[in-house]
């Protein structure tokens, strides 16, 4: 018994060493009983309050799976299965950028976003359109810098330099597929730069296979049917409401994963989780939430909730989903 305890002690000491080298927060590696205290989360107006280095997304289940929110000083990967999902994938990444830029340091003086597009992404998925970015994600036209790179090396270099500068609210690097040069080393460099400058770097990967990455957080995003638009008399039938995403957390700091169907609230710049139809709950903890009753919408209008299905599909046969 004593030997086992000793061994565990040693194991945790080693894990802590590794965490120090990797730059992860050590609580994940602490003994489970010791880590019980860190589970406590701050709540502010019924929502999780932003801890140091994290921005809450607004969806409590996602936030707790992420260990407090989207990390502000880290590389975060947002990937999609097919290029035709680019709207959802980009939208999700921009939503994260909007959340981070509103809660992070220097939120008052809105800083620009650098969006680096690699190769043919601009002709494939279109140019960013300022009016839409403004109304959905509150991104002013003069706060967007778009860089086009022909080669991956150049794109990575630009992303690293921007991350090192540390005065953007977020750096977005968008590319397609699984280039060989974007390996563990490259993602690790990006992550380190982001951590040093305390600035988020978002890596958008369209039609990418999951592969090892140094990013502490990776989300697989696919589109989800949007909720109905709310009117005074109730939901409007056959209307298209706020953007909705099905996000699968495939790598996180806490080691938890899960699939979440999230609606984007473009007034509060926060996600709202849609509960699966069976366990629909109304979370109303403060007056502030009631201003935007988006989450009160019916769970899904067309077809079943895709959340469990998407997860199963991811695990079993990701190949067949790459039709686009």
């Amino acid at each position, binding site marked *: 018994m004593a030997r086992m305890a000793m061994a565990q002690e040693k194991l945790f000491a080693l894990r802590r060493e590794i965490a120090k080298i990797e730059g992860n927060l050590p609580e994940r590696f602490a003994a489970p009983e010791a880590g019980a205290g860190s589970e406590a989360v701050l709540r502010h107006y019924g929502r999780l309050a932003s801890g140091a280095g994290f921005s809450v997304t607004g969806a409590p289940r996602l936030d707790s799976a992420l260990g407090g929110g989207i990390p502000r000083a880290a590389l975060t990967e947002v990937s999609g299965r097919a290029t035709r999902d680019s709207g959802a994938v980009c939208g999700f990444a921009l939503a994260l950028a909007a959340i981070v830029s509103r809660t992070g340091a220097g939120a008052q003086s809105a800083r620009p976003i650098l969006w680096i597009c690699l190769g043919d992404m601009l002709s494939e998925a279109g140019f960013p359109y300022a009016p839409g970015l403004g109304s959905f994600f509150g991104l002013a036209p003069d706060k967007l810098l778009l860089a086009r790179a022909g080669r991956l090396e150049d794109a990575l270099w630009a992303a690293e330099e921007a991350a090192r500068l540390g005065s953007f609210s977020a750096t977005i690097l968008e590319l397609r597929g699984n280039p060989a040069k974007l390996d563990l080393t490259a993602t690790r460099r990006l992550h380190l730069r982001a951590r040093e400058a305390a600035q988020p770097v978002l890596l958008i990967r369209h039609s990418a296979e999951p592969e090892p990455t140094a990013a502490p957080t990776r989300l697989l995003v696919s589109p989800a049917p949007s909720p109905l638009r709310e009117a005074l008399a109730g939901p409007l039938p056959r209307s298209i409401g706020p953007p909705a995403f099905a996000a699968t957390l495939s790598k996180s700091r806490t080691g938890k994963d899960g699939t979440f169907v999230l609606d984007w609230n473009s007034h509060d710049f926060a996600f709202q989780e849609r509960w699966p139809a069976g366990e629909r709950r109304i979370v109303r903890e403060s007056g502030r939430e009631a201003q935007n009753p988006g989450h009160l919408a019916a769970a899904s209008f067309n077809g079943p909730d895709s959340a469990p299905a998407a997860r199963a599909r991811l695990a079993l046969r990701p190949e067949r989903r790459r039709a*686009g």
Partner: protein
Amino acid sequence: MVSCRQNNAQRIVALDERAEDFGLKPGMGIADARAMYPDLEVVEADPDRDQLLLESLADWCDRFTPLVALDGRDGLFLDISGCAHLFGGENAMLAEILCRLTHQGFDVRAALASTPGMAWAAARYAKGDCNVSPGQEETALAPMPLAALRLEEKTRVGLESVGLRHVGALIGAPRAPLARRFGRKLVTRLDQALGMVEEAITPRLPVAPLSAERQLAEPIGTREEIEQLVLILARTLRQDLERRGEGARRLLLSLFRVDGAVSRIMVGTSRPQREPLTVAKLFHERFSALEGSLDPEYGFDLVRLSVTVTAPFEVEQTDLAEGTACEEEEFSLLADRIRARLGEGAVLVPVLAESHLPERRARFVPFGKEVGAKEAIDPAEKIRPIRLLEKPEPVEASAEVPEGPPLSFRWRRALYRVARAEGPERIASEWWREDEPGPTRDYFRVEDMEGRRYWLYREGLYGEKTAPRWFLHGIFP
């Protein structure tokens, strides 16, 4: 010997000394020459490559003076006013140019004179000393043949037919009858050669307002050495820029290779720059991008850094809250570096315009261009996609009712079944801007079965001559 097809026959256009010794002449038919000397070596003329060679020669001459002009197919003008002292005087400079060109294997004739016309004539027709000192033009020009005046063939033959064979005969002749008989051009040419009428040469390259250069005894080749030198040159330029109260918006680095090739590297800045370290950084990125294509071979023996575009430099007063100004500075520096490495149009910013047409409402312009007032997005604006395709892409769509939303559509060979649709939002073309207004568009927001949201439109109305067509224009989150 070089041949060229003229008037349906191969004729000699140029030949070397040995061929001249045989008694061959330009203009002679190749067949005749071959009949006389069967083992002649004949090369087909290639005027385009000749022109390229002349241009690269002009590039090389750029090391002596920034004012180099091409003259016809076989000549160069160098305006050396103010440059000669750098090479130890006019004669020394001429000797050096001739010596270096001869070493490169060119057969050159050069002359030094105070007017381009005189220099042209002296280089081609002077016997003995080619240099004409100021005031000596008349005596130098008088014994030369009429061709020395750069006259048209017709004029020259006309003059010769009346017995005027030397320029001297024209100088003394009454001018009015000459002009009346042979055109004003003749008199102008004469005056140009004599310096009575100013003649400007047209430099190939625009002259930079400021430049600094360094001649190197030992050619350099490595990137580090060049970057080091750029820093030194930028420090020199900084003083000049400060004196003028300006900053550089565009810089040009000319690298003169030992074997005559000249590489030019340009960087632009989004705001006026003076800082040598910044300039060196920008060139560092440019070199990284050029890696491989910049071939030093034997090394560069002359490096010149010029400021081609300047702009007034505003000295910013630092206030206590210097954060924002500092950040702006940082952004523009990073944008410049990205541009230096990724290419001129690599960094873009969106600009809004007052328009209903989606593609006109917002467009991208290169970073650093002066744009009008920045406009904020009106929150009450209609719902718009986050990405807009560069060109609306045609889709095959089928609709339930003619004016209604599509039921399904095929985009990029994939079928999408529409679950929900909102619309139409009718956007008419801007007839007040265009001569021929385009068709009216009816936009629909659609969501497919899996939740992808797109912006489609139907172009044209039912009942018109051409059937309406469907396009996909944007993508929603």
